[in-house]
Each structure stands twice: as C-alpha cells, then as structure tokens.
C-alpha cells in the first residue's frame, strides 16, 4: 500500500510540473524554448554614426541605481543590434546609475515570452509589442497610456503623422504604444531570374496563377514562405483586403461581423477559394509546411524560389541569406496581385502601417517610469529609426526625411510603397482576435496546403474559432 502511495506521490510531482506551467505561480516565468530564428539576422558592420541625439551638457544622475529591463527583437547579429547597443551605451552614459538589461528574442518567441510575463504580472519595463497584444495588456492596466505623454510633448508627437497616431489610438481613446516600426507588405521577386527567363512580375491574380505554371516548368518554386513558422498572417490580410475590401475586413476582425467569416458577403470565403487556387497551381514548393522562415530565405536567395511574400523586415534577412548587396542586384518588390473579379476588394490597399511599437510597464516608481519613457522616445526618434532603416532594418514610421543614397535600394522601394499606399490594413495577427488568427494560419491555410481541408472546411474552422471566441466574451 505504502509503495502505491509513494508511486502516486511521485507521479503527482512529475505531473505537477505540467500543471505549474499554467497556474498563476508566483515564480518567474519559464523561458520559452527557442525555435528556429524565424527572422534570421543579417551580418552587418556596426553603424558608423551615432543614432541618438547629442548628449546633454551634463549627465543627469538618478537618486540610486536603476535597472531597466528591455525586451526587444534586436537579436545578436541583426542589423539593428549594433545601433541599439550604441544607443543603450549612450543612454547609460547620460544617466549615471541607470543600467539597461536587454533581452532580445525573435518575434514569435518574444510574443510568447511577453504573454507569459504578462500573465504572471512580470512584464519587462520596456518591450517591443504588436498592437493586438498591447490592446490586451492595456485592458488589464499593465502598460502606460501614451496619449497624455504625446500631448505633453508636441515636438515628439509631430515626428509622426496624424495617420500613425490615429492608427495607434484605441476606440476607447488610449494609445498603447510609442510608434517604432512601420511595415509594408511586398511580393518580392528575383528580378535577375525574371529577366533571364523573360517573365513579367504579375499584377493580377490571373497573371500570377499563369506564371506559377511557367515557373514550375523550369523546376523552380514560384513562391516560398516559412510554413513551419505559420507565416500566413500577412498573406491572409492581403487576400482578404483584395477579396472583401477594407470595410468588410474590419467588420470581420474588430467590427460587427465577427461571427460572419462563413458569410460570402464578407469576402473571406472567396479569399480561401483563391488560396486553394494558388495551392492547386503549385505556387508553394513541396514541403513548405516543414520549412522555417530562415530556410525559406535561403531557398529564395539560392535561386530555388522565384518569389517571396512578406513584410519589410525581410530585406535584412535576404541580405543575410544571399550576402551583402544581394538584394541590390537581384530583388524588387511589387504589390500582391489584384483580384480583378472581386468588386468589393481594395487592390490598392497594402498590408502594413504602424502597429508595432514600444510598450512601457505601468506601476513603476515615477523616476524609473520617466527614464523608460525617455529611452522609448529615443528609440522612436528619427536618429535611431533612420539609422536602422538605412541598414536594412524596419521602416521608420515617422515623417523624417532620409538620405536615399545611403539606404539599400530595396528599402527605398519599400519606403516609397509605405508612403504612397492608398490605405493600410494590419496583418491578420495584429488585428484579428488571436483565436481567429491562429485558426487561419495554423489550421485553415495549412489544412488546404496538406489537402486535408476543402475551402468550405477551412472556412468552417475559422468560423468555429470566431464563434468560440465570441461565446467566451459573452459568458
């Protein structure tokens, strides 16, 4: 009997570690397991110029030692990392007693870590964040509201357009983050390969589907993406904007039609049909769902794939995969092809905008909070943003001018696309409820690629996720 009891206790101990992961344990949250670095960093020389504004004449000492915990995407070797290190060193020199401890993670890992930290009440002092997450944190009062800060500092506020501030303002009036990165989607294509084969970059859906056959005939994959990392959120937005139009898109994600994903009137059904057409046309290579974003980058850079669809941050990744200067010689961007048969669609809408920024934890003592705000403002300044942009980092969302001659040509194309867009829509993972986003990118689209789902079944999966989400809110 005693042995049985002992065995049960030991089993309990083992199983408890599983339970502990979900309980509101007081311990520090576990580090999420690393995954393939989905945003493979580019090797770059350190920035030549100082990114931050000039140092004040006198260093401002604090009342005592202060450590600021910063969670960022500036992983070792990324193009922004040396610029960030320089900024941190400068800030610490200007503020004796302040130490900034940076933890850098790939974006997917960072989101997971941030969620775990938020759930356990241990958010970092400053963190990179996407709007759909900061919105959730704001509901719990975990982060500060930037509205008053922006209004109290008109000079800083004026560095960003009204459109940027409007996009970051919640319906309840709060501004959950300081604008740091702008994003714009692109269908990148290997221009050298296109020229050699006499292919034309596709502007319409029919051209794209026809081109897939032609490219496949050459033994090249038409389009590649990091399927293992479920990199379908941007594609989902591009499809939906072109099939449904902006109003229907917003109604489905955040409006009054959140339970109408299976209603053809709102365009998602047609978007999924189009995705099925693309899969049937052999757009993706065999095994795309087993391929990380890093592997997809490599395939594109090796000339094994002709096109790649994703956001502006890919420039640095391509430079890393293909070598310095590879994008300059080989890569251009175009918009995702227009769905000419979808009357409600907005072909001029680009996926992107400014929905990524810095959040600052609430509840700190005023001195530390002021320091965090000051540092966040420096990160969101033109000095830092433009320096990063010139190296192939994210597009700076502000209105500052920049020197095109010192910026990578592909980045110039992206900035041009960002500044000339008719309208923007965020990527699906930044606008849709997480449950719906997950249903699209981990269930519906992969299910179509594997052949396990028909478009109707794929739509039904998303519809069910949306209904479950709404039922959860209603209870």
């Amino acid at each position: 009997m005693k042995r049985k009891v002992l065995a049960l206790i030991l089993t309990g101990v083992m199983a408890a570690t599983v339970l502990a992961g979900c309980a509101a344990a007081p311990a520090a949250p576990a580090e999420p397991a690393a995954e393939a670095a989905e945003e493979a960093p580019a090797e770059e020389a350190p920035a030549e110029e100082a990114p931050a504004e000039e140092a004040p004449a006198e260093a401002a000492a604090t009342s005592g030692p202060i450590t600021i915990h910063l969670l960022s995407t500036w992983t070792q070797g990324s193009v922004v990392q040396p610029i960030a290190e320089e900024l941190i060193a400068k800030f610490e020199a200007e503020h004796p007693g302040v130490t900034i401890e940076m933890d850098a993670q790939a974006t997917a890992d960072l989101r997971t870590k941030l969620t775990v930290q938020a759930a356990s009440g241990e958010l970092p002092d400053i963190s990179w964040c996407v709007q759909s997450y900061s919105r959730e944190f704001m509901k719990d009062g975990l982060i500060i509201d930037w509205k008053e800060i922006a209004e109290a500092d008109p000079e800083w506020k004026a560095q960003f357009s009204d459109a940027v501030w409007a996009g970051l303002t919640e319906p309840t009036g709060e501004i959950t983050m300081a604008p740091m990165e702008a994003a714009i989607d692109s269908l990148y294509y290997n221009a050298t390969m296109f020229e050699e084969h006499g292919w034309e970059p596709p502007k319409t859906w029919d051209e794209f589907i026809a081109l897939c056959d032609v490219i496949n005939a050459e033994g090249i994959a038409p389009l590649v993406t990091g399927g293992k990392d479920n990199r379908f959120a941007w594609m989902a937005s591009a499809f939906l904007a072109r099939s449904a139009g902006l109003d229907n898109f917003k109604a489905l994600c955040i409006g009054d039609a959140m339970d109408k994903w299976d209603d053809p009137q709102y365009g998602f059904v047609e978007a999924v049909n189009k995705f099925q057409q693309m899969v049937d046309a052999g757009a993706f290579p065999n095994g795309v769902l087993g391929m990380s974003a890093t592997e997809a980058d490599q395939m594109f850079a090796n000339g094994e794939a002709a096109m790649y669809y994703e956001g502006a941050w890919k420039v640095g990744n391509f430079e890393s995969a293909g070598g310095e200067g590879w994008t300059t010689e080989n890569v251009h961007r175009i918009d995702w092809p227009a769905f000419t048969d979808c009357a409600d669609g907005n072909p001029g809408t680009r996926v992107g905008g400014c929905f990524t920024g810095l959040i600052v934890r609430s509840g700190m003592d005023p001195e530390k909070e002021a320091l965090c705000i000051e540092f966040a403002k420096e990160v969101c300044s033109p000095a830092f943003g433009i320096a990063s942009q010139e190296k192939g980092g994210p597009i700076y969302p502000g209105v500052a001018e920049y020197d095109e001659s010192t910026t990578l040509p592909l980045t110039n194309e992206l900035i041009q696309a960002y500044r000339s867009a008719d309208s923007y829509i965020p990527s699906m993972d930044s606008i849709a409820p997480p449950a719906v986003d997950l249903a699209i990118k981990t269930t519906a689209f992969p299910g179509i690629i594997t052949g396990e789902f028909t478009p109707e079944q794929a739509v039904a999966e998303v519809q069910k996720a949306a209904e479950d989400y709404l039922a959860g809110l209603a209870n």
Partner: protein
Amino acid sequence: MKVTKNARATILLFVIPALVIYIWWVIYPIISAIYMSLFQTETLHSSHFAGFSNYMRVFQSALFWKSLRISLIFILCTTVLQVVLGFLFGYLVYLQQPGYRLYKALLFMPTILPSVATGFIWSYIYSPSMGVLKPFMKAIGLGKLYVSPISDPKLALYAVIFAQLWAGVGTQIILFNSGFMGIPAEVIESAKMDGATGWKLIQTMIIPLSWDVIKMVIILQTIGALRSFDLVYVMTAGGPNHSTEVLPMHLFVNAFQNFNLGYGNVVAVILFVLAMILTVTMRRLMQRESLY
C-alpha cells in the same frame, strides 16, 4: 518500535521544511490549476467563475481529441521502441564485446544534447533547403520526390518520434545496462552451465532478474512521453495542421498564444489525471515484484 512524543516532535521538525517547500511548489500549483480551470478568461488578469464550462469546451473540441490521440500514439511508439531498443542495445553493451566502451559512448552521446538542440539538428536534417536528406535523394536521382517528413501530416509525427528515439534511447540503454550489471555473475554462469544461452538466457534469467529496472524504465518513459513538449515545439510547433500537436503543445497554444488560460488549465488537469491513471494502470499490470 515505540515512537515517543519527543521523537515525534523531532521528526516533525525535520519534515516541516521539506513539507512546506513541497506544498508550495507541488501541491499549491496543482490546486491552483484545478481552481483556475473553473474560470473563464476575459483578459490575462480578469476572469469569472464559469463552473465546468471550460471542461465542456475542451471535451467538445475536435482539436483536443486529436491532440489526445496524437499524444497516445507518441507515448505508445516512443515507449515501446525505446524500451525494446534500450533493452537490446543495453544487453549488447552488457556482453562486453570488443570496443563496447566506444559503442556505449556513441549510443549515449545524443542523450547529452538538450531537446532543443536535437530538434534543430533533425529539423535541418529533414530540411528541403539546407538538409542532408534531400542532397542524398538527389544523388540517387530521386531529388524531385523528396518531401520533408515534417511537412507531411501523415509523416510528421513519426519524424518527431524518430528524433525522440535518437535522443532518448541512450538513457534507456544505460539504465538497462546498469540493471544487467547488477545481476550476480555466478548466477548467469550457473545458468549457462545448465544450458541457458542466447534467447533462453534472456528469457529465463535476464528479464526476470532485471524486472524492477524494466518496470521503472517503462513508467519513467511513459510519463516523460506524456509531458513531451520541447522537441515538438522546435521541430514542428505542433504542425502541419496540428498533426504533431501533443497535449502539452495544445495546452501551450491555448494558454499562451490564444490567451485562454482557463482552457489551458483544463488541459493541464487532464494531463495530471492521465499521468495518474497511466501510472496506476501500469503498476497494476506489472504488479509482480519479481518474475521469481
């Protein structure tokens, strides 16, 4: 032996520190998870009592049942294969053929790698753009037929199981080998003199005399497989289309990517109950203290 009041107090004093730690780190999280599984999450920090509605939602979820089935396949395959291979290789090492030390070291080497490293290694082996399997297939003229096993929902789970075997079987080998080494040499010698050699020796002497080790290995392996997460997370993150989403991965996705802590806690409670059921069942099935 009679325990005096003073002795009882002394025993209690020695036990209390460990007991407090045990209650805080083991019992409290269990109770907390069970309690939280009864709440519906609104935001990360607000929830309301919802009775058993989270349980209903979990049991009505097709993905949960899929995850449970995948977990059971994963447990069954990894346990059976690791125990059988661990036993066989452990026995080969026990025979101490020439070079057995090197052989033992080579077999154990993958075990010292963290699961995350194992996951990366096998992801890259299977990778169609950087891996070693595709060039091999190309070399024999079958390059166009190559499909990464982790991209195919029918193969992905078995590809993960294979990586788990590669990484985990070393531990079983060492455990079995140490069990066999504990069998008195004179017993084996006399069995051989009585004509027990080869399979007969294994059947009549090795298995019965190392039965306790076998039981321990099976139970540890089963519970370990039930909790397996990191290798799956790195290699497939549960995909493609949930085909490798074992229960801990299902818990993780719902609790930390879907912001649904109530649902995640229900899955955690189910994992706990499953672990208890599996242990009790296996102990019943293998109740004999020894085969002699």
